[in-house]
C-alpha cells in the first residue's frame, strides 16, 4: 500500500505536467491505436436532472496490437461533479479507484479522477498499460445544468503507454459525442396578452400561452393539439352599455414549439384588472399577470351633475330662480367606461332664460326667470347628449305688490278692491303661492274733513285665499281727498 501511495503522488505530479493542454497530434507509440471512435449515450438529457451517461471508446484499427491506455473526456458542463460507476475494458468490468495519478494500474483495474480547472473540466481514466485493445466503456453520472442547450461536446482524447500528448478521438458518427439538454416535463404555462398586459376595452387581443418545465425552460417539444380551458375574473362593463367581455371557447389549441397564440379575447370593464387562467388539466396551468384595461376611444358624451365622472346623468331637474346649476360633459367609450370631461358647445331649448351658450367641459346655468327646457352638449365628433327637462320655478316668496282697483286713483267714499300679488326676489310672480294666507292690513288713511268726518274702511285682518300668487280683496273705502294714503298687506311672519 505504501508503495502505491508513493506511486500515486508521483502520478499526480506527472499527470499535472502531461495532461494539459490537450492537442491533436499524431500518436507517438507504435502500438497506439490510430483511430479511436467514441459515442456517448444518451444524447438528450433533461435540464436540472441527475443523469447516468455511458461513454464508449472503440479502437477501429485492424492491427490486433493497436491499443490505448489513457482516456480523457472533456466535460462541457463545468461546475458539475462526475462520479464513475463502472468501467468495462474489452467487455470486462474493472476494479476502479478514484485517484489522481499518471501510473497505470495492474490488469483488471482502472484509475479515474476528475480534473477541474477554470474552463477545463475533464474526466481522466487510466487503464492497464496498453490494456485496451477493443473498447472502453465508462458509466458515469453527473448533474445536468438547469438551462437547456445543444451541441454540448463531450470531446475526448486518448493515449497509449504514457508517451502523450494525446490524440483526439473521432466521433462514431456526426454528433456522437454531443449532448442536448432538453426541457423537463411540462410544469406550467405563462400567459401573456398581446400588448403585454395592457389592453383596450372592447378591442380584441390575442393571448400567447407558453409551456415551461420546472426549471423555467420553454418546453419546445410541447406541440400539437392540447385541450385548453379558459377562466378569468373579468366582468361586464358599467351601465348603460353593460358590455360583456368575451373569450374563445374552451377546446383544442395547436401548440408549436411550446407556444400557441390564441385570438378572440375582449375585455370591457376599465374599472378592473382581471386575470386570465389557462388550464390544460393534470395540474398544468398558468395565470396571466393582472391585466390593465385601458379606456377605449371617446364614443359618447353624457351631461352629468358632477365633474370628472363623479356625477350622475341629468334627467329631470327642478330649481328656482335663486339657484344656479352646473352641468358637465362627461366623455365615455363605447363600453360606458368614463374617459374624461370633454369640451362641448353648450346650448339650451325651451324657455330657459337666459339661454345657455358657450363651450367648455362644463356650464353654469343661472336662471333669471322661470321656465323650462333642456341643456344640450354638442361634441364635435362623439355622440351628443342633452339633459332631461329642467324646470325653473320662482324663488321663495319675497314681497307683495298691492294695487288698488283703479290703479291708485280711487274716489272718496267709493268701495274698491285691492289686488295683492306675491313675488320672489327676482321679481317673478310666485305662482305657487296659493291657498289661504293670513293677511294683516295697515294704512295711513285718515278721516275726511269736518263736518262729515267720514272714516275710511278696510276689510278685517284675516285669511285670504291666493290663487297663482294673487288675491283680490274688496271692501276698501277711502274718504279724505286731501291725502294720498298707502295700504300695506302683510302676511304672517313678514
Amino acid at each position, binding site marked *: *500500500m505504501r508503495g502505491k*501511495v508513493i506511486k500515486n503522488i508521483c502520478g499526480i505530479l506527472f499527470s499535472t505536467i502531461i495532461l494539459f493542454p490537450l492537442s491533436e497530434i499524431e500518436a507517438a507509440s507504435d502500438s497506439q491505436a490510430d483511430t479511436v471512435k467514441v459515442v456517448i449515450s444518451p444524447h438528450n438529457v433533461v435540464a*436540472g*436532472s*441527475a443523469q447516468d451517461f455511458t461513454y464508449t471508446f472503440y479502437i477501429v484499427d485492424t492491427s490486433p496490437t493497436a491499443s490505448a491506455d489513457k482516456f480523457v473526456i472533456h466535460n462541457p458542463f463545468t461546475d*458539475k*461533479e462526475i*462520479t*464513475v*460507476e*463502472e468501467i468495462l475494458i474489452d467487455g470486462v*468490468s*474493472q*476494479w*476502479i*479507484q*478514484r*485517484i489522481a495519478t499518471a501510473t497505470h494500474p495492474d490488469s483488471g*483495474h482502472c484509475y479515474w479522477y476528475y480534473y477541474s480547472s477554470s474552463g477545463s473540466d475533464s474526466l481522466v481514466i487510466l487503464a492497464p498499460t496498453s490494456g485496451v485493445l477493443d473498447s472502453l466503456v465508462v458509466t458515469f*453520472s*453527473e*448533474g*445536468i445544468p*438547469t438551462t437547456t442547450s445543444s451541441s454540448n461536446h463531450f470531446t475526448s482524447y486518448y493515449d497509449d503507454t504514457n508517451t502523450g500528448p494525446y490524440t483526439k478521438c473521432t466521433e462514431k458518427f456526426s454528433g456522437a459525442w454531443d449532448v442536448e439538454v432538453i426541457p423537463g416535463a411540462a410544469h406550467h404555462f405563462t400567459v401573456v396578452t398581446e400588448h403585454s398586459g395592457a389592453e383596450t376595452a372592447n378591442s380584441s387581443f390575442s393571448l400567447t400561452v407558453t409551456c415551461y418545465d420546472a426549471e423555467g425552460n420553454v418546453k419546445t417539444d410541447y406541440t400539437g393539439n392540447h385541450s385548453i380551458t379558459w377562466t378569468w375574473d373579468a366582468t361586464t362593463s358599467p351601465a348603460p352599455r353593460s358590455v360583456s367581455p368575451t373569450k374563445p371557447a374552451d377546446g383544442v389549441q395547436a401548440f408549436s414549439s411550446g407556444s400557441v397564440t390564441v385570438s378572440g379575447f375582449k375585455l370591457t370593464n376599465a374599472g378592473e384588472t382581471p386575470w386570465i387562467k389557462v388550464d390544460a388539466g393534470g395540474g398544468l396551468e398558468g395565470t396571466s399577470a393582472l391585466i390593465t384595461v385601458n379606456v377605449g376611444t371617446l364614443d359618447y358624451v353624457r351631461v352629468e351633475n358632477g365633474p370628472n365622472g363623479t356625477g350622475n346623468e341629468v334627467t329631470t331637474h327642478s330649481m328656482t330662480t335663486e339657484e344656479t346649476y352646473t352641468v358637465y360633459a362627461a366623455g365615455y367609450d363605447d363600453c360606458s367606461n368614463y374617459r374624461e370631461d370633454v369640451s362641448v358647445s353648450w346650448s339650451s331649448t325651451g324657455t330657459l332664460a337666459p339661454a345657455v351658450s358657450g363651450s367648455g367641459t362644463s356650464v353654469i346655468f343661472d336662471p333669471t326667470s322661470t321656465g323650462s327646457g333642456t341643456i344640450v352638449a354638442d361634441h364635435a365628433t362623439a355622440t351628443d347628449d342633452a339633459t332631461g327637462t329642467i324646470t325653473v320655478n320662482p324663488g321663495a316668496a319675497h314681497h307683495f305688490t298691492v294695487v288698488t282697483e283703479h290703479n291708485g286713483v280711487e274716489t272718496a267714499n267709493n268701495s274698491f278692491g285691492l289686488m295683492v300679488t306675491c313675488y320672489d326676489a327676482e321679481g317673478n310672480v310666485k305662482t305657487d303661492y296659493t291657498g289661504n294666507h293670513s293677511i294683516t292690513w295697515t294704512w295711513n288713511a285718515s278721516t275726511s274733513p269736518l263736518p262729515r268726518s267720514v272714516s275710511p274702511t278696510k276689510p278685517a285682518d284675516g285669511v285670504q285665499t291666493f290663487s297663482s300668487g294673487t288675491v283680490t280683496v274688496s271692501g276698501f273705502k277711502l274718504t279724505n281727498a286731501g291725502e294720498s294714503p298707502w295700504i300695506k298687506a302683510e302676511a304672517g311672519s313678514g
Partner: protein
Amino acid sequence: MFTNRQRRICPSSFVSMVLCPLLLFTLFSSGFAKPSKVGISPHIIRPNRQVQTFDFTFSLDGGYQNSFEILCPSSCEKLILAGFTLDKEHFWLKRSEKRPQEEGYATWSYDPHQGLLTVRIAPGKLPSQGEAKLSFSAQGLSGQGPFSFTLKAYEKGKEDSSTKFTDEVFRGASD
C-alpha cells in the same frame, strides 16, 4: 425536521442548521466506541446541485464489520459509491453484489426500491481499528432538506448487532 424538544435545545437557525445535526449525531450514535471523527461532509450543499458527493467518516470499534449500508433520503434518487478508504488507503471498487475475497477490495450495489447502497468487503480482511471513509454520490436531491443519511455497519450474518449513524445535510440558500 426537529422535534419540539430538539428545537428547544437548539433555538437559533445557525445552531439548528449546523450544530444540531452534529450534536444529534453524537447523541444518537452508538456502538462505535468513542469515535474520533464521525459524520458526513459537507453538511451544506449548493442550491442548484442535483448530484452531490459526500464523505461519511467513521471509526471502527474493534469489531469485524464487513458490510456497510447507507440509506438514501426519501428525496434522493440514487446513491453511487465513489470511494472507500481505511486509514487513507484506497480500496478498489466494483459495482457487484458479489462479496470480494481479497483485502483492499470492495463491491457495492444500490437497491432503488429500498434506496439502499450496500458496500461489502472481504470477510475478516478489515482491521478492527482505524478510520474509515465512504465517499458516495447522491443523485437527484430535491428540495431544501434536511437530507438525513443513515450509515449502518455490521458483520455479515450479524445484522442484529449493527451500529447506526445518522447525520443530516442541508441545502444552502445561495452559492
